[in-house]
């Protein structure tokens, strides 16, 4: 049985269909990367997995438990086994870094403050943020916030980690740092991960399998090498990063010739 089972998942907001009959299975310890253009439902997929949205049709099951059918207390139990890393970190801005990472520990585990401190230090070390525990989120850069968000997500030792566009808006060097942190977490913790990203370099480093969402449907879900070799025109266009092709619904503006080409 797959650890995460997405079955015929459909979700629409008013007339706009965001996900249509999406099927994905993620095995324990596996790392799935979900690619796709903006607005193709990648974040909506993660929010359905977390139970933050209710599917219109189909379901998401974690360890065989159908998320949308769980009572609130049962859902909270399942969520304790999932760490969610938000696109903009979503740190609690009234708290320090330490309080952010300690939040789940203090609420769900009956452990001493000494143990909380030790676990927070451990988590911050894993993401390379040791010594920042007294800072407030407003004092951190974008990349630092994401890493503190990772530390908060792993504090409760989850079985599953979900990353929602962890590198969006970061410079290439910080993007690489975040990619390495995700890889380290994957290897050190042995967790199952689903990562949504636009960054192909880190996607191929992280992924055991890569899925591509296109107009609400999952058109491929295969290992990185097979994904690269897939002849589907949408996949090839996405990998090339070219505006010309079937990926965009509206045709792109014509490409201007460069000065060298004109000469």
């Amino acid at each position, binding site marked *: 049985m797959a650890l995460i089972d997405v079955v015929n998942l459909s979700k629409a907001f008013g007339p706009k269909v965001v996900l249509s009959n999406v099927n994905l299975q993620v095995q324990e310890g596996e790392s799935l990367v979900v690619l796709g253009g903006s607005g193709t439902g990648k974040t909506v997929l993660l*929010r359905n997995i*977390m*139970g*933050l949205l209710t599917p219109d049709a189909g379901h998401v099951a974690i360890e065989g438990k159908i998320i949308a059918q769980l009572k*609130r207390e049962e859902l*909270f*139990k399942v*969520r*304790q086994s*999932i*760490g*969610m890393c*938000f*696109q*903009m970190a*979503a*740190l*609690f*801005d009234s708290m320090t870094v330490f309080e952010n990472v300690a*939040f*789940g520990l203090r*609420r*769900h585990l009956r452990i001493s403050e000494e143990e909380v401190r030790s676990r927070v230090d451990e988590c911050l070390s894993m993401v390379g943020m040791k010594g920042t525990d007294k800072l407030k989120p407003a004092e951190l850069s974008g990349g630092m916030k994401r890493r503190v968000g990772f530390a*908060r997500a792993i504090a*409760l030792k989850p079985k599953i980690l979900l990353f929602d566009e962890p590198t969006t808006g970061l410079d290439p060097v910080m993007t690489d740092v975040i990619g390495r942190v995700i890889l380290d977490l994957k290897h050190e913790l042995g967790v199952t991960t689903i990562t949504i990203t636009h960054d192909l370099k880190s996607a191929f480093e992280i992924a055991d399998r890569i899925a591509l969402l296109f107009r609400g449907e999952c058109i491929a879900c295969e290992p990185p090498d097979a994904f690269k070799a897939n002849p589907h025109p949408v996949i090839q266009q996405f990998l090339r990063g070219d505006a010309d092709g079937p990926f965009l619904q509206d045709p792109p503006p014509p490409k201007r010739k460069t000065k060298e080409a004109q000469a």
Partner: protein
Amino acid sequence: MVLTFIDKTGASVLSALDTAGDFATLAGRTFVAIFKRPFDGKNLLNQFQAVGVHSLPVVILTSVAVSMVFAVQLAFGFRQFQAEGLAAQVEGLAIVRELGPVITGLMLSGRIGSAMAAELGTMQVTEQIDALECLATDPIHYLFVPRFLASIVVVPLLTVISIYVGFWGGYMILVGVEGQSAFVYSHEFYKLLAFRDVRIALYKALVFGMIIALVGCWRGYRTQGGAEGVGNAPTSSVVTSSLWILISDFFLTKLLLV
């Protein structure tokens, strides 16, 4: 044209019922969540400080100002009938029964209700409330309950302070300016009052506290649309809670004075 009118009216009624239902559901969930664990004492104390201690200056200043203005009006009005002695009695009645709780409620809806809406609204649009959910924490229990408890305790306490300050505001005008006897003022202020009037004032303050916290948290929690939504949430919270404070004041007065 008639059909369009009926259509629009129907849609408005349904929308209003939908909004009222949503508020009632969240209010009900707040009442239920009060008894859930874990109890977050630190969070509650922070709210007591934000709602109570920081609101003290504004309540004192407005109570002094309103009671002084009211005393000036009463002194002027009763002088027309050579009945200046009644001014202190009416001042006492008005401050304890109406001005104390209503002024405190309206000021706090502007000060703390709007702050709650802005804070929760910002948390909503920056996904902090989703983060709470993902950390297996009920936002109603974590965010609504401490604010609600702080409000229902602090608004009655501040109302008592407002009444006390109101007494001295009237004293400054009627004794200090109008030259009435201090002993007579102190005696007359309480002459028309019974303990029931103080109890009514506290009941009103309790209801106003509930309205302020629930409306503020509800408006913030339902914020949508980024910066514009966060900007609208406090305004909408103040307007809604002020309106409900005045409406509920009428019904509470009718109900409790019978």
